[in-house]
């Protein structure tokens, strides 16, 4: 049994809106995060990831349940618990008019550092996040990726054993994303840190994680290693049919489910809205099917008979996306 770093039991949060209505953002989450692992919470926007992180970092008071960090209760032993923890919020929580170094120095002081120790740690973080050259520039002049790196740096300043990273790659270019993912892996490999990582991108969860928890509507609907989770969907292939601007009548769905052996789930995604001058994106018909490759000719035939033209077909091996699709009937992307 590995050492538990974070223990969460029955955690729940109900927000009360100004108009009196209630939002059940988190509905009873149980979770153990082990020392030295990267644990990912994978779920779409609004699933309750940020709310969960806020509760287990001492920002939000839970409506129910409890959480401990290194054995310290986050609600009753907040100071001790928070000392073990670094947080990288989803927002870029920095002072835009201060330089990278000034931001790091200020937050370092908030962790009780000062003098030589502070300067040394700030230098190390600037090295680690590759920001040494721009350390004296105001954060507001930085690119999105650089801001993200400063944001991460603040969470690492006091060399915590545990760091929460809430969607740290949102809104950055692919190169910066690669860099951030490499940084996360280095935290585990070089520093033996425990990382709680949240994302709505299954590729990230799949690449980084020792274990993944899939969250939806405030609940942990599946939890395990990537392999274990994919096992759950069995050998299902995911077939993605691009069908231009056409829509799919219900009769086609019914026929596919009834006539094609092995089809378990059918999902239709209309094209995302465009900005006018772009080409309209394709509608997608996604089908989960056992031995999907072999069923493909029958599927194409049924679709064609409904006078729907297929522009292209993509066949994907089982992945976390498929797991989510099977568990919820919806795609992970918003």
């Amino acid at each position, binding site marked *: 049994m590995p050492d538990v770093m974070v223990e969460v039991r029955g955690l729940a949060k109900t927000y009360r809106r100004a108009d009196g209505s209630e939002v059940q953002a988190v509905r009873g989450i149980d979770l153990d995060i082990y020392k030295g692992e990267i644990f990912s919470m994978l779920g779409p926007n609004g699933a309750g990831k940020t709310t969960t992180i*806020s509760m287990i*970092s*001492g*920002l*939000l*008071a839970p409506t129910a349940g409890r959480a401990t960090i290194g054995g310290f209760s986050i609600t009753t032993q*907040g*100071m001790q618990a*928070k*000392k073990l*923890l670094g*947080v990288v*919020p989803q*927002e*870029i*929580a*920095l*002072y*835009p*008019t*201060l330089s990278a170094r*000034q931001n790091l120095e*200020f*937050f370092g*002081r*908030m*962790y*009780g550092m000062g003098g030589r120790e502070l300067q040394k740690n700030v230098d190390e973080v600037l090295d680690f996040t590759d920001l040494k050259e721009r350390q004296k520039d105001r954060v507001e002049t930085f690119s999105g990726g650089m801001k993200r790196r400063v944001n991460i740096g*603040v969470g690492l300043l006091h060399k915590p054993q545990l760091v929460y990273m809430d969607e740290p790659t949102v809104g950055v270019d692919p190169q910066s994303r690669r860099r951030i993912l490499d940084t996360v892996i280095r935290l585990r490999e070089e520093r033996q840190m425990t990382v709680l990582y949240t994302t709505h991108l299954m590729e990230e969860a799949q690449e980084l994680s020792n274990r993944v928890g899939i969250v939806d509507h405030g609940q942990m609907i599946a939890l395990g290693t990537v392999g274990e989770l994919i096992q759950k969907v069995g050998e299902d292939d995911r077939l993605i049919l691009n069908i231009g601007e056409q829509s799919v009548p219900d009769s086609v769905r019914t026929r596919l489910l009834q006539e094609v052996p092995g089809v378990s789930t059918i999902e239709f995604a209309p094209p995302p809205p465009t900005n006018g001058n772009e080409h309209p994106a394709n509608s997608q018909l996604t089908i989960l099917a056992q031995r999907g490759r072999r069923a493909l000719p029958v599927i194409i035939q049924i679709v064609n008979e409904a006078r729907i033209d297929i522009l292209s077909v993509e066949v994907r091996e089982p992945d976390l996306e498929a797991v989510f699709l099977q568990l919820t009937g919806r795609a992970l992307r918003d």
Partner: protein
Amino acid sequence: MRKMLYIALNDLRVFFREPGSLVAIVLLPTILMLAIGYGIGQTAIAPTQVRVDVLNNDGSALTERLLGQIRAANNALVLCPMDDQDGSCRLDAAQPLTAEAISRRLLDKVTQAALEIPAGFGAALESGQTATLIYRSNNNAASPGIALQAVQAAAQQVGGAQVAAQVGLSVAEAYPPVGFSDDADRSAFRQGVYDRATTLWADNPVRVDYVQSTAPNAPATSSTQAGFGQSVPGMGSMFVMFTVMTALYAILRERRNWTFQRLVMMPIDRRSILAGKILMWFTAGMIEYGIVFGIGLLIGLNLGNDLLALLLVMVSFTLCITALTFTISTLVKTDAQANSTSNLLALSLAPLGGAWWPLEIVPPFMRSIGHISPVAWAMDAYNKLLFEQGTLVTVLPEIGVLLAITAVLFFIAVRRFKYE
């Protein structure tokens, strides 16, 4: 505690880096303070104007000399009704200035003092007899106003020792009705006045010195003092409000940026975070006062005799506004609300409290209403310190009121402040 100081320092740095902050806290207050100070200095609404009603039952040449000497002793005095110009006496056209009218004006604090010159005053003086002047004031007996000092000096010059000792004063709530029931009563009063005046004289010759030092052309009552003595504390106080109320917007922005949430997730006591923010905005307010009063000093404003008292008034007012701001911050949800609330509050509390023009010139009921504004209490204290040679003791009531409001508001703010 150290973390609290670092939070305050960091926020100050962020505040001063804000584009336009120098315009808002240096340039704008300076321009308005100079413009209004110059304007007031040139007109008759300066708070240095102390109205003294005169009921002249005598009309001799000697009486005229006496009034002339009073005017000469302190050019801040306006003798009513004879020196009324542009309504500076605030006389009611429908009503002559009778003894009753004078009493009422005194009670309503339209005038600071009233002087009754009895019939035969001049004749008595000339014949070497004792002549009595009746001086009434709404000032506390312990701190005689400049009007009394002027009258005393004038009386000394006109009648010498004979008259000087006849000047009396009484307190507004307790002054006796005009007219006495019989002669015994009158002479008893005269004796009382005599004794009182003698002691005053004997105890406090310095007051005469003061009166002489503020004779015409002395810098203390120049138009600089009259104008900037009003506009420096007035505009200073208004811009302290504007500066401190920037916090409404800054707090919202810190939550939006998540820097506030980041602090809450760090190992810091929540109260220290709030205390750091409060300390920061209090300091910003004091810096604003420092700038406006500093420039006032440069252009020749006399800050009075008690700098410690002045500092304490600034501290109390700034604390009060900081407490008000943090109380309101628990209600403000959007930038638009922050903006309109701070403008509305600053632009109503300032004129209501006499930051734009002295409350002296508004009707008594407006003056009373004005005292729901903390600005009014601060301005009362500044007037005492800058115009009436007040000391810490004389401004303690105002400081007390400001600190009491502060305590109540901070109590609410600390309990209602949200960290989530």
